């Protein structure tokens, strides 16, 4: 292992320990349960590599990598959980639409990974899986951040920074895993991008949890069903009036 690789590895481990420590010390694990699970998983996975015998390394690496791809979706779940708290008007508005969009994005990820083209073009299945999942995660995060901006949802600085860092990292991972498959000549250089960007991601998350103010609770204005019903009725009558007027 080169000095540079060792520096990336140990700084990554140190930052992961700091992240989990911060979540526990500040009691943020209660507020960001899904995100905390994700952070704990990252640390557990890294520590696992120090424990297992070298002969098992490859097997454990690929198995945990597949789990890792799925665990990363928890960051998006955390964002959704804070953006659309139970009973808020936005949750009522998007309850069905959000599920459809999420399902469509997951199907896109599976399709891009599973397509025949992927098997023909890919040098590495791991890279194919990574880029499909990272692309989906980046698009979902961007969609959520755009919704935050559009509806002026008070997301809080911490979660905003977490989401931005994750989105940037997922975008880099998408492009990087495609470049790796495209041309193997620069593989040693491209391979550094992922761990480096991951260390930067964990570093940013540490900074966000350490420096920024915690997520303000979204003012939970519970929409009464009667109120919503009245609104729908008015909307329908406006629509029918419009239809009548329209030549």
């Amino acid at each position, binding site marked *: 292992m080169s000095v540079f690789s060792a520096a990336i590895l140990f700084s990554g481990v140190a930052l992961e320990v700091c992240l989990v420590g911060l979540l526990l010390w500040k009691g943020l694990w209660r507020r960001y349960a899904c995100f905390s699970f994700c952070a704990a998983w990252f640390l557990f996975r890294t520590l696992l590599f120090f424990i297992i015998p070298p002969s098992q390394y490859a097997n454990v690496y690929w198995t945990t990598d597949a789990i890792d791809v799925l665990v990363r979706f928890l960051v998006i779940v955390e964002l959704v959980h804070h953006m659309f708290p139970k009973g808020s008007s936005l949750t009522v508005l998007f309850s069905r639409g959000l599920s459809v969009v999420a399902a469509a994005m997951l199907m896109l990820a599976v399709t*891009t990974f599973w*397509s025949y*083209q*992927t098997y023909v*073009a890919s040098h590495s299945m791991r890279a194919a899986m990574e*880029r499909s999942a*990272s*692309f989906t995660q*980046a*698009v979902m*995060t*961007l969609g959520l*951040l*755009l919704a*935050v*901006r559009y509806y*002026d949802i008070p*997301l809080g*600085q911490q979660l*905003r920074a977490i989401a*931005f860092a994750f*989105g*940037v990292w*997922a*975008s*880099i*991972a*998408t*492009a*990087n*895993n*495609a*470049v790796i*498959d*495209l041309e193997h000549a620069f593989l040693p250089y491209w391979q550094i991008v992922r761990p480096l960007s991951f260390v930067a991601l964990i570093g940013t998350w540490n900074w966000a949890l350490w420096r920024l103010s915690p997520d303000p609770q979204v003012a939970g204005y519970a929409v009464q069903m009667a109120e919503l019903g009245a609104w729908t009725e008015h909307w329908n009558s406006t629509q029918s009036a419009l239809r009548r007027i329209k030549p």
Partner: protein
Amino acid sequence: MIDLFLFIAAGVALLIAFLLLGFQGPPKTDADAAALAAVGQIVTLQGTSFVLGDRLLDDAEYCVLRSNPDLLPVATQLRKDRRELALLWINVLLSDLRALWRFRRFMIRRGAPAHFSEELTILRSLIAAVIVLNLLKLSVLTLGPFAFARVARHACHPVDVMSRAAANVLGRIPLAGWADLERAWTSSTA
């Protein structure tokens, strides 16, 4: 191969989108609607209350008139009238801007809290708005009212920005003090 290129392009595009969104920062807290309405009531804004700005700078009627050779003199007269009206409107917008700026300074003088960086930003937008409106005036004078119609349609925007800036400061003053403030402002401008 194509899907790899697509993924690279998508990754780069997403990265740029995240960076752009990140550099924009969190959405700015908008002025309280009540404060905004109060500003409109205290400082009489004549330029922004003129809702037919779009029609004034729209050249559709002028083009229709010009297409008929018999109506050319009418078209010329319309253009001249529109030019005068547009100049009048821009002048009113400029006076609105100055009034809002004076009102903001008046509130700060009377103890409304404000930040230095905020003041610098407001001053910068005021200078930019005055320059843009004067350039617009010049273009209306020299090239006519329909030359930069699309730009001119957004002429109200700087006044809206200043109005929101004033409303932000007014929002920091307790509601009970607004009536006193209005009286003091009216007497100071009389």
